[in-house]
């Protein structure tokens, strides 16, 4: 038989089946191409976002005895290097300034020598706050400690040499102080040293004039570096970019034969991004692939709606002498047509989706990868069409006998997977994998020791995928059992719609259960996919919001830098600002835990939970409310980080001795606390380690005597062993000597205020607060910081992907219910026509249709919702790594879920009504036509 004629005939007789199959392929192709477009765009965004935040790409540190000029020449000559400038570090025993008749002294610090043009070459490193951008510059904190500004004289202390005076030209902020003062060559992951408190920047010539003599006597107290900026012509994939940058740095080190070490800030930034990029790819696998699989299943189901008829057709063709080869050939022609139409429509749809959701109509970062992705998507479509159409045709052509073809119910025996309990095996395997993953701490992105590459624990990802598949098959089994042995239940459920027909309907459904269970499984799989994706995405967005809240602390946060202190009554006046609903004061200071300096937050236990909107997930060992209650009952209670618990082997109730700087004497005093629980996150707190205690208790224990404390320079000369080591401050920043106590009337030394703005805009409230407090305090708002903070993954913003995924999920849910039901029912038009001819009223025929559609839809929705709930739990657990912070529970997008259920219901109802309407066609024609 001629394939073209066959296709034309098929198109005339079975347009629904062909269009449905093509639509399924189109959805798969469009979904794949859209996600690919998103992914490649996201990777590129991550790379750019990661590189943009780096002020100095490389800090190449010359080893002692190596001529810095050689290093400079080598760096400047290295490939990709755009700018290279020498920078010198020298340790100072302290700085001193006389202003307004008083003398202020600081502890030890670092003097940095920078050449002219440094600020222009590395724009992110210095931010001028006052005065000039060139000349002698004081870091902001140091200027505050010294009460000094442009035009003031500052003297620089040197070990074993007399002090030198310089005149300050400007005050700068060092936003990247952490990396600027890093210990170059320190193994990654080693305790990062805090930057020095006191920093002065000198023009290169002046620095050499002052510190070359020191270099001669104490070479260990100076350090030469070359700072380099690279051209950032990097691969778009963060991993590839990381590899390129690390490789270049290693080459440079080799070229310098061990004369210098590269502090690779750019690679460090890309290192974070490549982990995130792997997570993006995992999201693709977990959230995108099931969608493509679903579209494939949908196609297969649509193609299979007419399988009984096709088997009969084939048997007839066999009788007329058609070979298996011919029949498979005809099926292949059908599949090719479906793939062609579906692929074209799918790519077109993806281009539209890309344009509207991601602002790009191409499917990849470059033309080549775009073409590759488009091709891959279309190939997936071809594979789906072949699998859905050719494979069953081939099987039927081989095995279908004339006798079997007459049997219109298809094979009666239970599918092999059902007999082999495949669904239970899948669920079991998923459970085991999940358990193993949980035991390993949900580590999905692995950082193998000593290897430069990251790897994904793909094994762990199979957990949710197997769970999903297992749930689908289990839904199938449940539906099969309900339609079969449970047909009394079906009859009971049908009673209100079908009356005395309900038994007959249940009997009819029970004999069709092989055909009916499949759509139930499909609807359940789709709903599970859509629901879990929606829940995951909503939780993710919610947590991204929580992250911003944590970083900013509150809607609006007002913080007074340590030395200034908050003026008395500030909390009251802040509360009076329009739009402020609540003011939660905290006292932020530092404390030594052993040798480790940590942030300590003094809080009001009675108000902190509500005032700072604390979540249970921030804590271990109790809910936020419970731990705050314990804190309230136990004045010397303290919450510490998990790390501290481990390091000190703490058990609840154990005593913990911290060293805090006394407000009066300025000396470190020991304060005893009792360990209550673990805090993982806290508003405004750094990620790693911090402490939370009662503000009043801390204040009372560190109020000291009446010492005026004019000079608090505790750091002895020579304490610093080089610029790196100088980073360990001997003067914790909270209360440098001059402050003489918190300098506040606030009894607890409150210096941080978390403002709840309720429904008012944080931005405008921040504006008003700024006007109120002036320049003395730093005022930040949630909206602005949400834009600034976050990992590169949050920077990518999943909202585009979310919209696309949720849209596709909805489409699939509607298609699974509407299309599959409609086509399935359509196949039985003949039965309905016979019923009409036997005297059935339209209402009675409609009862058949509606009961079938209703049971499939409701069963699919319910089972799918249950599976989706479990799946979402699993996904959120397994993908803990993308959440920052980890969520305390799921955030459920009720609106979307209810909307989806309603839409699926409407689609099912619409499909049923279309069929009901079709049964009203003249009966005889229907019977003859079919």
């Amino acid at each position, binding site marked *: 038989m001629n394939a073209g004629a066959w296709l034309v005939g098929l198109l005339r007789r079975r347009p629904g089946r062909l269009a449905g199959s093509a639509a399924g392929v189109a959805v798969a192709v469009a979904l794949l191409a859209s996600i690919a477009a998103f992914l490649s765009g996201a990777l590129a965004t991550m790379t750019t976002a990661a590189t943009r935040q780096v002020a100095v790409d490389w800090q190449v540190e010359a080893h002692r005895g190596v001529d810095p000029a050689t290093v400079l020449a080598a760096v400047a000559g290295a490939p990709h290097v755009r700018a290279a400038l020498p920078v010198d570090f020298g340790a100072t025993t302290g700085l001193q300034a006389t202003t307004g008749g008083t003398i202020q002294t600081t502890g030890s610090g670092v003097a940095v020598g920078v050449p002219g043009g440094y600020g222009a070459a590395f724009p992110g490193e210095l931010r001028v706050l006052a005065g000039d951008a060139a000349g002698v510059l004081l870091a902001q904190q140091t200027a505050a400690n010294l009460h000094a500004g442009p035009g003031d004289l500052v003297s620089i202390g040197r070990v074993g040499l007399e002090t030198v005076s310089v005149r300050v030209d400007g005050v700068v902020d060092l936003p990247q102080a952490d990396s600027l003062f890093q210990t170059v060559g320190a193994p990654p992951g080693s305790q990062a040293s805090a930057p020095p408190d006191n920093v002065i920047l000198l023009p290169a010539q002046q620095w050499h004039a002052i510190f070359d003599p020191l270099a001669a006597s104490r070479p260990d107290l100076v350090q030469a570096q070359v700072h380099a900026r690279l051209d950032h012509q990097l691969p778009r994939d963060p991993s590839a970019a990381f590899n390129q940058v690390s490789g270049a740095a290693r080459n440079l080190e080799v070229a310098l034969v061990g004369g210098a070490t590269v502090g690779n800030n750019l690679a460090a930034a890309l290192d974070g991004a490549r982990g995130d990029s792997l997570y993006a790819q995992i999201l693709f696998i977990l959230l995108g692939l099931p969608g493509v699989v679903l579209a494939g299943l949908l196609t297969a189901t649509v193609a299979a709606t007419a399988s009984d008829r096709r088997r009969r057709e084939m048997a007839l063709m066999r009788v007329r002498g058609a070979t298996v080869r011919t029949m498979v050939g005809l099926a292949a022609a059908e599949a090719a047509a479906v793939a062609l139409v579906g692929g074209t429509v799918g790519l077109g749809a993806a281009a539209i989706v890309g344009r509207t959701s991601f602002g790009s109509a191409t499917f990849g970062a470059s033309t080549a990868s775009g073409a590759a992705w488009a091709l891959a998507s279309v190939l997936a479509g071809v594979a789906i069409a072949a699998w859905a159409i050719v494979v069953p045709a081939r099987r039927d052509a081989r095995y279908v006998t004339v006798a079997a073809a007459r049997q*219109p119910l298809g094979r009666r025996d239970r599918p092999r997977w059902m007999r082999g309990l495949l669904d239970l095996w899948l669920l079991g395997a998923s459970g085991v994998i999940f358990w193993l993953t949980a035991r390993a701490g949900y580590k999905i992105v692995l950082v193998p020791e000593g290897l430069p590459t990251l790897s994904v624990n793909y094994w762990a990802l199979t957990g949710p995928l197997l769970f999903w598949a297992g749930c689908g098959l289990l839904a199938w089994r449940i539906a099969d059992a309900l339609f079969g042995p449970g047909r009394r239940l079906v009859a009971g459920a049908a009673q209100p719609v079908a009356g*005395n027909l309900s038994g007959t309907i249940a*009997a009819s*459904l029970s*004999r069709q259960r092989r055909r009916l269970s499949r759509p139930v499984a499909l609807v359940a799989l789709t709903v599970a996919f859509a629901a879990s994706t929606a829940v995951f995405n909503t939780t993710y967005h919610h947590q991204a919001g929580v992250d911003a809240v944590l970083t900013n602390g509150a809607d609006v946060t007002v913080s007074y830098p340590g030395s200034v202190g908050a003026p008395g009554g500030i909390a009251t006046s802040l509360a009076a600002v329009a739009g402020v609903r609540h003011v939660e004061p905290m006292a932020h200071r530092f404390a030594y835990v052993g040798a480790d300096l940590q942030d300590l937050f003094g809080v009001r236990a009675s108000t902190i939970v509500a005032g700072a909107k604390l979540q249970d997930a921030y804590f271990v060992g109790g809910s936020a409310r419970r731990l705050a209650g314990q804190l309230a009952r136990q004045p010397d209670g303290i919450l510490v980080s998990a790390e501290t618990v481990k390091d000190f082997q703490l058990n609840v109730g154990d005593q913990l001795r911290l060293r805090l700087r006394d407000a009066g004497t300025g000396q470190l005093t020991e304060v005893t606390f009792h360990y209550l629980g673990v805090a993982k996150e806290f508003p405004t707190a750094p990620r790693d380690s911090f402490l939370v205690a009662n503000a009043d208790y801390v204040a009372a224990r560190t109020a000291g005597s009446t010492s005026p404390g004019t000079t608090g320079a505790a750091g002895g000369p020579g304490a610093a062993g080089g610029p790196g080591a100088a980073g360990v401050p001997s003067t914790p920043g909270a209360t440098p000597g001059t402050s003489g106590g918190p300098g506040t009337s606030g009894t607890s030394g409150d210096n941080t205020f978390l403002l709840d703005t309720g429904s008012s805009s944080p931005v405008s409230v921040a504006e008003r607060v700024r006007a109120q407090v002036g320049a003395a305090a730093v005022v930040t708002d949630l909206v602005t910081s949400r834009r600034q903070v976050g990992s590169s993954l949050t920077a990518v913003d999943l909202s585009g992907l979310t919209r696309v995924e949720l849209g596709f999920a909805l489409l699939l849910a509607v298609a699974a219910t509407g299309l599959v039901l409609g086509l399935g029912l359509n196949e039985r038009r003949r039965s309905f026509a016979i019923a009409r001819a036997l005297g059935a009223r339209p209402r009675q025929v409609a009862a058949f249709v509606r009961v079938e559609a209703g049971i499939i839809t409701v069963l699919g929705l319910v089972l799918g919702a249950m599976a989706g709930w479990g799946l979402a739990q699993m996904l959120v657990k397994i993908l803990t790594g993308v959440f920052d912070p980890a969520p305390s529970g799921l955030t459920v997008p009720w609106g979307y879920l209810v909307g989806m259920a309603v839409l699926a219901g409407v689609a099912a109802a619409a499909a049923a009504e279309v069929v009901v309407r079709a049964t009203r066609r003249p009966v005889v024609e229907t019977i003859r036509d079919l």
Partner: protein
Amino acid sequence: MTDDPDLVVANDLARTYGRGPTAVVAVHGASCRIRAGQQIALVGPSGSGKSTLLHLLAGIDTPTSGVIRWPGLGGFPARLPAGSVGLVFQGPSLLPDLDIAENVAFPLVLSGQPGSSARAAALATLDQLELGDLAAKVPGEISGGQAQRVAVARALVARPRLILADEPTGQLDHASAATVIALLISQARELNAGLLVTTHDPLVADQLETQWQMVDGRPTVGADAVAR
């Protein structure tokens, strides 16, 4: 004769399939009536419009022109009470997803009978046709001839006033054909129902008291019953 009410009265019926040059006129100028207790064989060559006329008389097809009424069945014009017409199709017409008993009981269930009593009646009818053994099978599992007899059982189960059977013996051997016709005749007599059987088989036709001949899309011989 006049005490027997007219079950169905057709006047100048026409049924045309399709339009324009390819239109097929299957029935044309057909006028006839069937009274209760009347037993008619409708014979005629293949394609002469027998099935079409039967469908029109059953009210499951609408005439292109002409008037048809069912005064004796209380149905006017085409909304006949469920079960009042017993219909046997020419081709396979059992519902594939119901077993034989359920198929036979189906018209009763449609007329509102509870499932259990409908089933009992169906089993009784099946026994009458010696088909009791098939009750639990599905249509896919029985032979074409058996299916045809089941269809006859289904047509009789609701004790109809009008029985319209389209080639009910087409696939049967002579012996079974004779049984089926005898059953149709005896049941029609018992129910005082009108009976119309289309057939190619002269032996079958001879058993019925009246014979109508389909010629040119209209029943001619014996069509004395035309509405006046």
